C-alpha cells in the first residue's frame, strides 16, 4: 500500500548523509595516478542511490544535481574521462553541495540555488569537454512516453545498450507493498524508457479483486547501465514476481555481469535500496522480521532512556543490599544470596547497556582526512595523514566532546608543527610531513594521540615568550615539562602571525580546560626539530564516576576521585591566615587556599573549627583544600543530571543516590574554586 512518505524522510536523510561520507572517503582514497575501479564504482553507486531516493520523495533539485554528478561518474567509470586533480576537487565540491542541499530540505530552509546551479554547471562542463572519439553515436531514445522523465543517455563512442525487461507480478504484488509506478520512475531516471502494459490477464469487473495484481509489463530501457543497476530497482520485489532482463546490443566495455564490490562497500548496497525502492516494502519487511540480520537503527533517545533506567536499577539494587546489611540476622540466607546474585546481574546489565552506547572513534576521526587535505592545501604544506586504532570504542557522550579538542590539536600541528616543504628538505626531512592520529584504550580510559614529525616545540622561544608576558620570573629555571606546560597558559602563543586557522589565543588552554572538565588530561612530549606528540586521555564514559564520598555535617557529597590530589588529617597549626589570601593550608611546601564547604553550602558542621580533614583538590588549573568532617568510602556512582531533574546549581555538577536512599550532590570543583575566589576577593 502506498504510505505517506514523509515518515521515511528521516531515514532517507540519515542514510544519504552516511552515503555522502562514504563517497567523500572514497574520493579521498582515490589515487589519481592509478584510480581504483572499485572506488569509482562505490562513488557511482552512492550517487545513484541518493538520486533514486530523492526521486522517490520528489526532491527534484537533488535528483537533478545528483543525476549530473552520476553522469560524470559514469564517464569516469567507463574510463571515457580520466580522474584528475581538478575533477577530484570538483567531485568533493559536489559532495559539499549535496550535503547542503540535503540539510536545506531536511530543515525546510531554502537552498543556495545559485551555488547549486554553478557547481552543476561546472560538472556539466567537465562532461561536455570530455575527449570525443571518431565513432559516431547512434540515436539513443526511441519514442519515449511523454510525461515520463526522460534523459538521453550520454553516448560516448558506443550506443547505449537496450534492455528488455519483463515484469510479471504475482497476484499479491500490491499487498506486499510493491508499487510498479515508483519502480518505473526509477528506471526512467536511468535512461529512455518505454512501457507497455500487458492487460491479457485482467478479469471482468465483477470478478476483479481490486487488491490483486493482474497486470504485467514489458519495458524497453535504453541506458548505459549494467544489469545490476536495473535489478537493484526491483530488489524489494524479489519473490513477488517473475523478472526477466535481457540485453540487446551490448557494446564492448559495458559489463553485463555485476562489478565486483569489495566487502566493505557491499554493506552499502543493502542499505541503498531501502530508500530507493518502494518504501512500504521496508515497513512490511520490518514487520515480518525479514531483512538484514546484522544491525538495526535505534534512536539515541531510546538508548539514553535505557541507560537511565538501568542507572535507577543500580541505585535500587544498592538500596536493597544496604537494607539487607542492616537487617542481616533477621533475614534468611537465601535473601542475601539472592541479592548478591541480583547485584551481579545488574552489573552485567549495566555493562552491556554501556557497551551499546559505545561507538568506535572512527565516527569522529573520519572527518579528518578531508580537513587535513583542505588545510594542507590552504597552507601550502604537504601532509600525509595516518589514522590507526579507529575501531577503539568509547561512550557516545565522550565521543561528542572529543572532536573539538582533536580538531584544535590537528590544526595546530599542521599550522605550526609541520614545516613547509622547502624548510623540511633543507632540514633533511622528506618534503611531505606525516601526521598521525592514534586511538587506544589505556586502563579505564581512552587515549588519543596526535603526533607529527614537524619542528616540535622550541623551549627557548617558549621561555622567552613566557618571560616577556611575566608568566614566570626572569631567573626561574624550569624543567622541560614545566616549559612545555607553559603553552597551555591562557592567551599564550609563540607565533608571530596568527593565521585564521589557529594561534588566535583561543587555544590550548581552552582545550585543556575542556578535557579536564571531562575528567581527562593532556600529555605532551616533544623533541625540537623532530616533532611533537599530544595525547588526550579521557574516561571511557561520562555516565558513571569514581568518587570519594565525604561528609559535611549531616550531608554527603561526592568528590570526583580524579581531581583529588591528597587527603590529610588537619593537625594543630596547619591552618593559617595570610594577608590577601585568606585562610590557607600548608601543603608540600606551598600554601593552598582552604574552602570551608559548610560555609559555602550553609551546612552545620559536626566538628570543631580547627578539626577535620583537608581534601586537596585540583580544578580549573588551580588547587584548593576542601575542609570536610569525614571521609566516607570510595565508590562508583551513577551520575544523575541535576539540570534535567531540578535546575542548574553553581558548584554542583550532578547528583547521585546512595545505597541508603539519600541523595549526594557531586561537586563541581572548578565551580567551587571560582565561587570561593569570588568570595575571598569580595
Amino acid at each position, binding site marked *: *500500500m502506498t504510505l505517506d512518505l514523509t515518515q521515511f524522510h528521516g531515514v532517507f536523510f540519515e542514510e544519504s548523509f552516511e552515503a555522502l561520507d562514504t563517497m567523500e572517503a572514497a574520493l579521498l582514497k582515490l589515487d589519481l595516478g592509478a584510480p581504483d575501479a572499485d572506488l569509482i564504482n562505490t562513488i557511482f553507486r552512492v550517487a545513484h542511490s541518493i538520486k533514486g531516493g530523492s526521486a522517490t520523495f520528489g526532491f527534484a533539485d537533488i535528483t537533478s544535481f545528483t543525476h549530473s554528478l552520476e553522469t560524470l561518474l559514469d564517464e569516469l567509470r567507463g574510463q571515457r574521462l580520466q580522474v584528475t586533480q581538478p575533477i577530484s576537487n570538483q567531485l568533493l565540491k559536489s559532495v559539499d553541495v549535496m550535503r547542503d542541499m540535503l540539510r536545506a530540505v531536511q530543515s525546510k530552509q531554502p537552498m543556495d540555488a545559485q551555488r547549486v546551479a554553478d557547481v552543476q554547471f561546472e560538472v556539466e562542463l567537465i562532461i561536455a569537454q570530455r575527449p570525443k572519439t571518431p565513432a559516431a553515436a547512434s540515436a539513443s531514445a526511441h519514442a519515449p512516453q511523454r510525461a515520463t522523465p526522460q534523459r538521453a543517455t550520454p553516448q560516448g563512442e558506443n550506443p547505449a545498450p537496450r534492455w528488455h525487461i519483463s515484469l510479471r507480478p504475482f497476484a499479491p504484488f500490491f499487498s506486499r507493498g510493491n*508499487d510498479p*509506478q515508483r519502480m518505473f520512475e526509477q528506471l526512467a531516471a536511468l535512461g529512455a524508457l518505454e512501457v507497455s*502494459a500487458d492487460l491479457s490477464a485482467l478479469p471482468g469487473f465483477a470478478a476483479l479483486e481490486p487488491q490483486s*495484481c*493482474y497486470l504485467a*509489463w514489458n519495458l524497453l530501457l535504453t541506458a548505459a547501465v549494467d544489469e545490476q543497476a536495473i535489478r537493484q530497482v526491483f530488489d524489494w520485489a524479489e519473490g513477488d514476481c517473475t523478472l526477466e532482463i535481457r540485453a540487446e546490443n551490448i557494446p564492448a566495455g559495458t559489463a553485463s555481469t555485476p562489478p565486483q564490490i569489495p566487502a566493505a562497500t557491499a554493506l552499502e548496497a543493502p542499505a541503498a535500496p531501502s530508500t530507493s525502492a518502494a518504501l512500504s516494502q521496508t515497513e512490511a519487511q520490518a514487520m515480518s522480521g525479514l531483512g538484514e540480520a546484522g544491525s538495526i537503527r535505534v534512536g539515541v533517545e531510546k538508548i539514553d532512556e535505557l541507560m537511565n533506567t538501568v542507572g535507577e536499577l543500580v541505585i535500587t539494587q544498592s538500596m536493597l543490599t544496604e537494607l539487607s546489611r542492616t537487617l542481616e540476622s533477621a533475614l534468611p540466607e537465601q535473601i542475601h544470596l539472592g541479592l548478591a546474585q541480583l547485584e551481579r546481574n545488574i552489573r552485567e546489565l549495566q555493562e552491556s547497556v554501556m557497551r551499546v552506547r559505545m561507538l568506535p572513534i572512527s565516527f569522529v576521526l573520519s572527518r579528518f582526512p578531508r580537513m587535513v587535505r583542505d588545510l594542507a592545501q590552504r597552507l601550502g604544506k604537504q601532509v600525509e595523514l595516518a589514522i590507526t586504532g579507529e575501531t577503539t570504542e568509547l561512550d557516545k557522550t565522550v565521543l561528542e566532546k572529543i572532536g573539538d579538542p582533536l580538531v584544535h590539536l590537528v590544526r595546530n600541528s599542521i599550522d605550526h608543527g609541520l614545516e613547509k616543504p622547502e624548510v623540511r628538505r633543507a632540514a633533511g626531512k622528506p618534503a611531505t610531513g606525516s601526521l598521525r592520529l592514534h586511538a587506544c584504550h589505556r586502563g579505564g580510559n581512552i587515549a588519543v594521540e596526535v603526533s607529527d614529525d614537524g619542528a616540535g616545540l622550541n623551549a627557548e622561544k617558549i621561555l622567552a615568550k613566557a618571560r616577556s608576558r611575566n608568566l614566570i620570573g626572569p631567573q626561574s629555571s624550569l624543567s622541560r615539562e614545566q616549559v612545555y606546560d607553559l603553552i597551555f597558559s591562557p592567551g599564550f602563543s609563540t607565533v608571530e602571525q596568527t593565521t585564521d586557522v589557529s594561534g588566535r589565543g583561543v587555544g590550548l588552554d581552552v582545550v585543556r580546560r575542556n578535557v579536564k572538565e571531562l575528567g581527562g588530561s593532556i600529555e605532551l612530549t616533544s623533541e625540537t626539530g623532530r616533532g611533537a606528540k599530544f595525547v588526550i586521555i579521557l574516561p571511557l564514559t561520562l555516565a558513571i564516576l569514581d568518587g570519594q564520598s565525604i561528609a559535611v555535617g549531616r550531608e554527603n557529597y561526592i568528590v570526583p576521585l580524579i581531581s583529588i590530589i591528597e587527603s590529610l588529617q588537619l593537625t594543630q597549626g596547619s591552618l593559617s591566615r595570610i594577608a590577601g589570601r585568606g585562610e590557607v593550608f600548608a601543603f608540600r611546601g606551598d600554601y593552598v587556599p582552604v574552602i570551608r564547604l559548610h560555609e559555602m553550602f550553609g551546612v552545620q558542621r559536626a566538628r570543631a573549627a580547627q578539626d577535620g580533614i583537608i581534601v586537596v583538590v585540583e580544578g580549573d588549573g588551580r588547587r584548593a583544600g576542601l575542609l570536610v568532617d569525614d571521609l566516607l568510602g570510595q565508590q562508583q556512582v551513577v551520575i544523575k543530571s541535576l539540570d534535567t531533574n531540578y535546575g542548574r546549581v553553581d558548584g554542583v555538577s550532578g547528583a547521585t543516590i546512595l545505597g541508603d536512599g539519600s541523595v549526594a550532590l557531586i561537586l563541581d570543583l572548578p565551580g567551587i574554586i571560582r565561587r570561593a575566589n569570588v568570595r575571598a576577593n569580595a
Partner: protein
Amino acid sequence: MPQRRSAKPRPKAKRAPAIVLRGDYALARVESLKAVLAPAVARAAPVVLDASAVTRIDTAGLQVLTVFVRERQAQGRSVSWRGVPTSLSKPAQQLGLAAALAVPLA
C-alpha cells in the same frame, strides 16, 4: 377534482451526470473505488468520470479503472473523462495504461 400534479421541471441535461472520483485512491481505498464504479458498469447511458478531485491514485486504483473502461468498451458502451489531473494522468502514462484508460495525455 383530482389535484393536478405539478410537473417537475425537467432539468436541462446540459451535461451527463458524472461519477465523481475524489481524494486518495491508494491500495486501502481501492475496494471503495470498485464500489463507486460498480453501479455504472452496465449503465446504458454514457458514463462520465470526473476525476478532477483525485489527489492520488496508485497502480491498483488504475487497474480498477482499466477493467471498468475495458468492460464498458467490450459492451460497446462509452466512458469519457472530465477533469483529469496530473495525479492521475502521470501514473497512467508511467504505467503504460494511458491508452487503455482512454485518458487524454496531459
